[in-house]
Each structure stands twice: as structure tokens, then as C-alpha cells.
């Protein structure tokens, strides 16, 4: 399945407002949004945040980030790394409210393998 169609499925999870996949250089590969939000400019900062998170993981003697969640005033953001063919990507979701987090994480987990496959196609 194509990346856009999979992100559309992510967007159908109750509580998800937007979803995008960003590569480790900050390029937004694809993004979908319930409200037509332009996600194209978040990539650079996400890549930079990922680089610092990796350095932090290194300090703690770890190699892998499993998830990052940030609570903002108007809703949380969930970032989940995707690994495909040795390259790194990040699935970025903005959510309606923090109480959607458990459900979204549960539903997203089922879609992650397909998302990882789709980013390289």
C-alpha cells in the first residue's frame, strides 16, 4: 500500500489530527491532515530533535529511541522511529488531546510495519 494511503489510515484513528513521515535529513516524505495543516516545515526541527535524542540515548548507553511524546498546550505530538532498509524515518502524529494517547499508540503499532515498508517504495 502507498504511504499516503497508510497515513490516511493513521488519520482515521480517533484523536489523530495529522500524520507525516519525515526522513533523518528532515525531508517530509508525505503528510496528511484533518484540517489541511501544512506539515512541510516541521521536518528540519524534527530531524534536529532526533539527532539530539540519539546523542542522549548514547549517553545512557542505548542505541535506540522507541518513542517520543511531547505535550503541547493544544494537544500532544507523538514521534515514532521507523527503520527501513537500514535508513531511519520518523512517523509524526499530532493528536487532539492527551487522553487519546493510549488508543493511538495501540492502533499505530499495528500500522508501523506497513509504514516502514511503504517509505522505501
Amino acid at each position, binding site marked *: 500500500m502507498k504511504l499516503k494511503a497508510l497515513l490516511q489510515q493513521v488519520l482515521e484513528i480517533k484523536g489523530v489530527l495529522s500524520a507525516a513521515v519525515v526522513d533523518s535529513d528532515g525531508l517530509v516524505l508525505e503528510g496528511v491532515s484533518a484540517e489541511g*495543516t501544512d*506539515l512541510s*516545515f*516541521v521536518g528540519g*526541527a*524534527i530531524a*534536529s*530533535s532526533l*539527532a*539530539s*535524542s540519539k*546523542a*542522549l*540515548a548514547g*549517553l*545512557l548507553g*542505548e*542505541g*535506540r*529511541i*522507541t*518513542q*517520543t*511524546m*511531547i*505535550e*503541547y*498546550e*493544544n*494537544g500532544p*505530538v507523538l514521534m515514532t522511529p521507523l527503520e527501513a532498509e537500514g535508513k531511519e524515518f520518523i512517523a509524526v502524529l*499530532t493528536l487532539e488531546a492527551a487522553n487519546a494517547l493510549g488508543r493511538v499508540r495501540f492502533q499505530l503499532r499495528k500500522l508501523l510495519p506497513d509504514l516502514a515498508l511503504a517509505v522505501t517504495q
Partner: protein
Amino acid sequence: MRSALQPLLGIDGLVALLVLTRDGLPVEMFGYGLRAEQLAAEVAGIARSTGKAFRALGLGDPGRQRISLQSHGVDIIPVEDYYLVVVSDNGRSDGPAPHVLESTLEPLRLLLRGER
């Protein structure tokens, strides 16, 4: 500082507790085996990037941020002009519970404002 942070110092699985300035300078650290300067610099970098990324989307200012690693969880909480960082062992804790965090933040705010 220690007395303000006392509720967090008692959480199960705590690895390190750090208070740092927004530009990445450590103010106080409790914990072993970590270099406070490096930890503070990386945390400040993460907080800067995530703040920049989503503020433009109309999400407002960032609050608590949790980075989950394979064995550790790192919570970054903005407090006044500082960050409070809690590093915990994933196997023993999901990070500080909201009520524990709340009971720490108010005295810490007062302390960092110089009102205590």
C-alpha cells in the same frame, strides 16, 4: 534544591534527576554514572528543536516531553526558565506519576523564582 526535589528522589527506578538552564547549563544533578554537562546540553538541544517544530503549527508551548528508549525513559519538564529532567529505568517505572510531579513542581517553581 534537594528538599524541593524530594518527592521525585523517592520514585522507583530513578536513574538521574537534573535541573538545567534553558541554554543547557546544569544547575543541580542527582544520580550516578552520567555526565551532567553532556546530559544538559543534549536535553537543551532536544527541547529547543521540539519547541520550534510545533509552535508554528499552532500547538502552543511545549510542556512535558517523554523520550522512551529501550531501557530508559527521559522526561523533560519546563519549569520557569529551567528544565527538570527525570531519567528512569523503563523496567521499573513509567516515569514520575502526575501527582508526584505536581507535588515537586510548585516548590521547585518557588525556589527557581527565588521566592523560597
